[in-house]
């Protein structure tokens, strides 16, 4: 083939959808849907205008947060949130770790794998709020419902992410330990655990962050923690108290993030 023939060759990138007409039709359909979607959102502009006024009150409240008048309620709420966080993280990690091993295809027998995967899928399908509503129905209002919620959600979180990590460990190292005649448990301890330990600690700390943030929301459905206090403050239009609580939550989340970041750095 000479240079003149090369200039005749055409090259185009491969498309996800090979048929050009189908591609164009899909694009038109998407744009049409988007247009009608935007038009169909019914905005009540008068309500937005009123709300804007309240939003201003709220912004002003942030300039004068009131930590003092509901001092005891706030402290109780924060302490409850922290306690829920610590208990639920420990419990969630303890439940999630064995399930993570079970949910890793490369080390666990088929029946156990399916049971553990099923737990992961179910616990990850529902957000914390929905699980919390269910637990409030079962065990009643209060932090216990919140702890149960965060334990289940945390276990699902650890089981899914650590399980995937276990599935991608180096298979040769696993094989080498197996080849020495080590038992399944010894293989776990010597070939699997060393490879996923730093990730496990990282995920547990990360989960601690998430649990604290969630514990400040769960109160709204009556599952304990600072969220309940916040809900009451807003219900009473005590925006300065609400602002104080929100500022405290921000401060605590930032502190927790800073500390867990430091620890993760040292582990890796």
């Amino acid at each position, binding site marked *: 083939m000479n240079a003149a023939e090369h200039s005749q060759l055409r090259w185009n990138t491969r498309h996800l959808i090979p048929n050009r007409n189908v591609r164009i039709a899909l694009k038109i359909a998407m744009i049409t849907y988007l247009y009608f979607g935007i038009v169909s959102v019914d905005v009540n502009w008068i309500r937005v205008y009123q709300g804007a006024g309240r939003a201003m009150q709220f912004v002003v409240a942030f300039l004068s947060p009131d930590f003092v008048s509901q001092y005891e309620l706030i402290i109780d709420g924060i302490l409850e949130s922290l306690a829920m966080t610590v208990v639920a993280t420990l419990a969630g990690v303890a439940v999630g770790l064995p399930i993570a091993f079970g949910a890793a295809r490369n080390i666990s027998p088929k029946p156990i794998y399916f049971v553990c995967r099923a737990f992961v899928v179910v616990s990850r399908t529902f957000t914390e709020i929905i699980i919390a509503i269910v637990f409030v129905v079962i065990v009643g209002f209060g932090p216990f419902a919140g702890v149960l919620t965060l334990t289940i959600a945390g276990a699902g979180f650890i089981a899914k992410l650590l399980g995937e990590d276990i599935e991608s460990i*180096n298979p*040769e*190292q696993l*094989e*080498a*330990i*197996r*080849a*020495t*005649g*080590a*038992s399944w*448990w*010894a*293989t776990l*301890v*010597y*070939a699997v655990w*060393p*490879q996923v*330990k730093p990730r496990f600690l990282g995920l547990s700390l990360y989960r601690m962050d998430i649990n604290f943030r969630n514990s400040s929301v769960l109160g709204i459905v009556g599952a304990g923690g600072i969220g309940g206090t916040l809900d009451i403050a807003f219900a009473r239009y005590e925006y300065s108290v609400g602002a104080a609580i929100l500022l405290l939550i921000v401060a605590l989340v930032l502190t927790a993030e800073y500390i867990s970041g430091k620890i993760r750095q040292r582990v890796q």
Partner: protein
Amino acid sequence: MLSVKGLTKRYPNTEISAIEDITLDFPDGQVIAIIGPSGAGKSTLIRCINRLVEPTSGEIWLNETNVCNLKSESLRKLRCRIGMIFQEYALVDRLTVMENVLSGKLGSVSLWKSVRRKFPQPVVKSAFEILDRVGLLDQVDKRADELSGGQRQRVGIARALLQQPELLLVDEPTASLDPKTARQIMRLIVGLSKEYNLTAIINIHDVVLAREFTQRIIGLRDGSVVYDASPAGLGTETLGAIYGEEDWSHSTYESDNNDSDSAAASIDEKLGALK
């Protein structure tokens, strides 16, 4: 004595067998090289012997043990008797040199002891002896991923030897190493096998190393044995039969037949000296 009879392995969803009807005897204390191109079935063959790969059909006997019939507990006992050395060393990176070596004894130490790293003193003693023998006594507490390739392979060798195996399965021990280190590692494996009177089956790409260090060479091609004799008979024609047609004159004795060392081996040596 290790005997393989009519061994066939076909992986699921593949058209042809990785190894087909292989029958071989490996007498005690013999050091054997298995050569052959990539995909010939070398790894499959040795992995069937310790059942990391399940054979499709055929028999494997290690002395009086029928390898293919073993289930969980007795399979583990069998694996304790067989040491394995890998191309990519297969050390657990985040464990120390000593922990990696001691993991060779996991099959016979209780879980509780191994979790707490409390291995019986005789095991620790022999781990130190073996580490001394492979020249790593000063690296005991280093993490495995801090070592060089040659040092890592020495840890791999020590781990396999701590098992006090009857049989060594060695899968391309030198393929990831530079020529000089490759030669040292090969010498170490063969020397130690002789010293402990082990049967050793060594998969190896490098024909020159194979013929220099072993008395028996098995050539595999497309899953079948096409050569099984001493290195002396390995000429251009047989290499062609194993690897396919090429100019083999530099890998054989024929180009240099009054010298005991092959031409390519001496080139290898000179390359090694450069390192």
